[in-house]
């Protein structure tokens, strides 16, 4: 019913963006207090582009690269976990700090509560093993398959890595093909190479993904 030709209606229908921002942040805090915030999320800038971080009250549940399309990722979280989703940075302060430290080369391990509810069965078992591969080390898909007790399930290990809901934190980038090639990566091969370079003492070229 906005009728911009009528100054009264135009005035009533003028938005107050500053108040909206304040009220949104207050809502996020109140939702947390009332235990209504099933999924909190924020984004962080990284050398590998903008990362989406999402957490339940159990812990970090999703890390997503830009190329996954953050709107689609949030919609998937809505469908799989709960529609009670708000941009609420506070719950992710510690996560964001550890990501910044990691990309600065100052952190080798993420020390965070993780929520693995988006991974099931064998994939969940693979992710559990990935957490044991140390910073700066790599394993092959075949080695990971053997370590999880299903030596022939090499392709399934590849799928588990490709669908890892917590890339970077659960280091699927440390898994390579037996011939030494990179294999695949949810964030793209440039990102995988960049992470491996970072972990071998290098730094990440900020322009690596800008092509």
């Amino acid at each position, binding site marked *: *019913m*906005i*009728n*911009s030709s009528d*100054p*009264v*209606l*135009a*005035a*009533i*229908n*003028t*938005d*107050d*963006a500053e*108040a*909206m921002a304040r*009220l*949104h942040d*207050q*809502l996020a805090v*109140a*939702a947390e207090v*009332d235990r*209504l915030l099933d*999924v909190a*999320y924020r984004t962080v800038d990284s050398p590998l582009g903008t990362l989406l971080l999402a957490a339940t009250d159990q812990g970090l549940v999703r890390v997503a690269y830009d190329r996954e399309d953050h709107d689609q990722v*949030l*919609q998937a*979280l*809505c*469908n799989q976990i*709960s*529609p*009670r*989703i*708000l*941009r609420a940075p506070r719950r992710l302060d510690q996560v964001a700090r550890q990501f910044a430290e990691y990309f600065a080369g100052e952190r080798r391990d993420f020390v965070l509560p993780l929520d693995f509810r988006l991974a099931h069965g064998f994939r969940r078992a693979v992710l559990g093993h990935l957490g044991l591969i140390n910073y700066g080390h790599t394993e092959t898909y075949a080695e990971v398959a053997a370590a999880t007790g299903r030596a022939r399930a090499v392709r399934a290990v590849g799928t588990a890595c490709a669908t890892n809901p917590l890339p970077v934190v659960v280091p699927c980038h440390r898994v390579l093909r037996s011939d030494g090639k990179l294999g695949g990566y949810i964030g793209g091969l440039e990102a995988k190479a960049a992470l491996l370079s970072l972990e071998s003492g290098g730094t990440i070229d900020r322009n690596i993904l800008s092509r």
Partner: protein
Amino acid sequence: MKRPFEEIVAEHGPTVLRVCRAVLARPDADDAWSETFLAALRAYPDLADNANIEAWLVTIAHRKAIDLLRAESRRAAPVAVAGTRLAVGGWEPSDGDLWAALGALPTKQRQAVAYHHVAGLPYAEVAALVGGSTDAARRAAHDGIRALRRRYLNSATVPPQKES
């Protein structure tokens, strides 16, 4: 398919805030917005997928606003009836202030203006919210807008118009 609640806040939050501010004086209006969206967040998983979300939010906001009006009329001196909310809660009307002009309207006119001209509800739905007939709702909105024009536009300070 439900969308993340964040999208609901982004899409409808500004409209609901304007509705709250048309119906209530600040800071009550902002409190009503907060209570509306917290209640909506609580109920959202059970909302029908094909529900009209804005009408749903406005209905919640209407109830929250009534709660706040009642609480205020209990707090205020007995002379302050619910229909007039002049200068309560530290809110000072002044000439040329649209919100002051709104505050001088009877509650029903403010509600009719807010729900029809801000939220875009048809008069039948406005009537369902505020009570009375569809015609009465239309009249209340009409009278409200006419009074606003008189009080607000007669003052010299008309802010720049917003493009729709």
